[in-house]
C-alpha cells in the first residue's frame, strides 16, 4: 500500500513509500521479489527509531517487519534466544527477565526491533564491558533479492555476516536472529548518581567507573559556558545481586498526540529543562536501587517524545572521537553549541571501550561518544552541525548513521574506511535514502 506516513524518529524527511507488512516469514520471499523490482528498491524497517534517513526509502518500497514478532526458541543452558526479527527488545525483556536473563546490550530505548538492533549494531551504557549488540548475535537468517536465503554466523568468512551487522538493512532482509543473552539475579539496578562540574571531572569519573561499573553514562548541560562548561550528571550502575525477577509495570505518561508548536521549544524551555535536570541530579546524588526500566529507558516513559520538537522535527548528532582527541574535541563541540545557542535537551556523553565492533559499518570504536539533539530550525541547525563535523573530522572521529540525516558523503567515507568493501555486499535490490546520499 502506498503511504505518506512512514517517518523516522527525527520526523524531518517526509516521503512516499510503498509499504507491506507481512505476518509470516513464508511471505517474505514473494515480497522481496515484488519490492525489489522498482527503481528505488526495498528496505526492511522496524519500529522507526532511527532518527535520520537510514530507515527510509523514499519513492521505493519498505517491508514493515513489526508483525514478525514471534519467539522461535529459547535455550536457557546455552543462553540462546531465537526470534523473528520484528520482535521488539521490550518483548525480548518480557520473555527474558522472569527467566533470570537480560539483554547483553541494550540501547536507550526498548522500542527497537531485533533486526534494527542488528542492522545498526547498537550499543548501550555497557559498551566498555560488552561491546556492541552485534557481538552477541550467534546466527541470523538473511533473505536476498536473488531469491537466496542464508543462515549466517560470526564464523562466516564471505563477509556477508560482517556487512549485515551494522549494515543498515542494505544487505537483505534479516528474517530472524539468535542472540546470546546474559544471566541476572535481579531485575533491579544498583545505581549511583554523581554531579560533576566540568569535563575533566567527567573523564576522571569515567576512568574510575569503567573498571567497577557495568553501565556508565553522563548527561551534559550543553548550555553551560565558561567554568561550568561540560558540567553534568554522571550515572553508573550494576545489576543488583538480589531482588525480584519481575517486569515492572512501567510508569507511562500519556503519549504526545500532536506535534508541539514551535514556540514551546525555545531557549527558555531548554534552559529550564537543563536547570531541572541539574537540580534533579543533585537531589538524587548518591546511591539508589531502582527497576531496570527507568535506568535504561527514561525516555520510553513518554510515548512520542520526539513530537516535542514540533512539526519540523529534530536532528540527532552522535559522534565518536578517539581517546587522545576526546577532551579537546568534546570541549570544542560544547563551545560551538553554546555559542550557537542551539541547546540540546539531552546531551549524552559516554566513553566507549576497546571491544572491536563486528560490523564493517559499526559505529562504536574506542573513544568518547557525544549524542545531541537539535530542533530542526533549517539553515542555522545545519550550519552548526557542519561546524561540529569539522571538529569530529579533525579528531579522526565519525558519526552514527542511525542518527544521521545530513552527513556529507565524503565525511561518511573517511569515517568508515570499510565502506567500499561493505558496498560489495549491498544487495542490488535494496536501498535507502541514506545510502543513496552517501554510498552510491
Amino acid at each position: 500500500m502506498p503511504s505518506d506516513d512512514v517517518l523516522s524518529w527525527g520526523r524531518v524527511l517526509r516521503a512516499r513509500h510503498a509499504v507491506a507488512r507481512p505476518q509470516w516469514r513464508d511471505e517474505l520471499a514473494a515480497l522481496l521479489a515484488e519490492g525489489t523490482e522498482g527503481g528505488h528498491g526495498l528496505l526492511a524497517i522496524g519500529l522507526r527509531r532511527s532518527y535520520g534517513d537510514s530507515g527510509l526509502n523514499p519513492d521505493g518500497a519498505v517491508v514493515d517487519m513489526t508483525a514478525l514478532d514471534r519467539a522461535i526458541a529459547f535455550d536457557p543452558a546455552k543462553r540462546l534466544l531465537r526470534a523473528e526479527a520484528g520482535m521488539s527488545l521490550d518483548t525480548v525483556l518480557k520473555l527474558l527477565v522472569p527467566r533470570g536473563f537480560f539483554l547483553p546490550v541494550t540501547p536507550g530505548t526498548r522500542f527497537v526491533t531485533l533486526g534494527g538492533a542488528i542492522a545498526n549494531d547498537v550499543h548501550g551504557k555497557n559498551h566498555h564491558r560488552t561491546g556492541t549488540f552485534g557481538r552477541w548475535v550467534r546466527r541470523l537468517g538473511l533473505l536476498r533479492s536473488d531469491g537466496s536465503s542464508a543462515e549466517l554466523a560470526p564464523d562466516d568468512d564471505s563477509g556477508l555476516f560482517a556487512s549485515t551487522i551494522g549494515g543498515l538493512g542494505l544487505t537483505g532482509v534479516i528474517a530472524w536472529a539468535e542472540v546470546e543473552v546474559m544471566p541476572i539475579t535481579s531485575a533491579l539496578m544498583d545505581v549511583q548518581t554523581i554531579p560533576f562540574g566540568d569535563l575533566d571531572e567527567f573523564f576522571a569519573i569515567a576512568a574510575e567507573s569503567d573498571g567497577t561499573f557495568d553501565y556508565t553514562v553522563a548527561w551534559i548541560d550543553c548550555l553551560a559556558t565558561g567554568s561550568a562548561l561540560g558540567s553534568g550528571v554522571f550515572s553508573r550502575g550494576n545489576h543488583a545481586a538480589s531482588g525480584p525477577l519481575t517486569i515492572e509495570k512501567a510508569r507511562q505518561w500519556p503519549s504526545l498526540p500532536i506535534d508541539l508548536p514551535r514556540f514551546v521549544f525555545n531557549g527558555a524551555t531548554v534552559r529550564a529543562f537543563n536547570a531541572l535536570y541539574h537540580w534533579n541530579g543533585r537531589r538524587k546524588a548518591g546511591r539508589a536501587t531502582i527497576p531496570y526500566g527507568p535506568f535504561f529507558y527514561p525516555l520510553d516513559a513518554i510515548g512520542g517524545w520526539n513530537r516535542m520538537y514540533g512539526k519540523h522535527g529534530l536532528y540527532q548528532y552522535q559522534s565518536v572521537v578517539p581517546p587522545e582527541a576526546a577532551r579537546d574535541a568534546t570541549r570544542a563541540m560544547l563551545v560551538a553549541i553554546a555559542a550557537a545557542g542551539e541547546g540540546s535537551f539531552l546531551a549524552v556523553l559516554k566513553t566507549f571501550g576497546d571491544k572491536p565492533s563486528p560490523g564493517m559499518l559499526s559505529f562504536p570504536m574506542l573513544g568518547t561518544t557525544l549524542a545531541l539533539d537539535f530542533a530542526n530550525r533549517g539553515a542555522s541547525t545545519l550550519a552548526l552541525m557542519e561546524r561540529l563535523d569539522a571538529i569530529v573530522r579533525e579528531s579522526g572521529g565519525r558519526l552514527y548513521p542511525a542518527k544521521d540525516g545530513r552527513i556529507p558523503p565524503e565525511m561518511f567515507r573517511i569515517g568508515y574506511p570499510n565502506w567500499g568493501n561493505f558496498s560489495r555486499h549491498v544487495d542490488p535490490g535494496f536501498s535507502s535514502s541514506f545510502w543513496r546520499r552517501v554510498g552510491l
Partner: protein
Amino acid sequence: MKVIILGATSAIAQATARLYAAEGAELLLVGRQAERLAAIADDLRLRGAARADTAVRDLADSGDAAATFAGFVETLGGVDHVLLAYGILGDQKTAERDPALAERGFRVNFISSAGWTLAVAEALEQQRRGSLVVLGSVAGDRGRRANYIYGAAKAGLATLIEGIAHRWAGRGPRAVVVKPGPVITPMTEGFASRKGLMWAAPETVAAIVRRAADRGGPVVYAPWFWRWIMLIIRLLPASIFNRLDI
C-alpha cells in the same frame, strides 16, 4: 485453563492466544497451515503457555464436526474456552456476480462456522460449563452495499449464538458473539486508509474477546462504541440510510 482456538492463524486469534499464554493456559490451535500454526505454538510456549498443540484442519469443512471437536477435547484433556475466529472477507463486487465465490463466503463464514458452533455447544452443554466465543462483525447488524454478503453470514452466526446463549440462560456455559468494527489485520489489507478512531488494533479486540469469555452479555462490540453507532445505523429509516455512502 484449556483453550481451543478454531482459526488460530487469524490476527485477532493470535493476539488473543498471547493473552491466554500469559495466563499459563493450555492451548490447541486449529487451522489449515501446519507451519504457521507451529510458528504460533512455539511463540506461545515461550510467552508462558503451559502447552500449545496444533491440529491441521480445513475448518471450512465442518462435516463430522462433533466427532472432530471431541477429538480436539481429548487431545487437550478437556476444554474451558473455545474461540471461533476464522473467516474471509471476500470481494463484495465480485461475489455479487460470481455465485461460487458468494457461496464460498457463506460456507466459510456461516455454514461451517455454524456447524462447529453447534458441535461445541453440545460439548459444553454436556459438561455444563465452559465458554464459546465467536467473532461476528458489525457488518452483520445492517446490510450495507459495501459488504452485505459477508454481513449476512456474520448476521446468521450472531443469531445462532444469541439463540445458544438464550438456551443456556441461567445455566453453566456461556455463548458470546464479539462484533468488531474495522480491525487492522491482513483481512482488511488493501483498504485505502486504516487510520483514525474507527480502526482498532487486533490487540484491542483481543482484550475484549478474552474478557467476553469470562463475563458480560451474549453480544459484545469491539470496541464498545460500536454498540451505539450500530444502534443508530439500525434505527435509521431507509429514506435516510439509502442516501448515505457507508
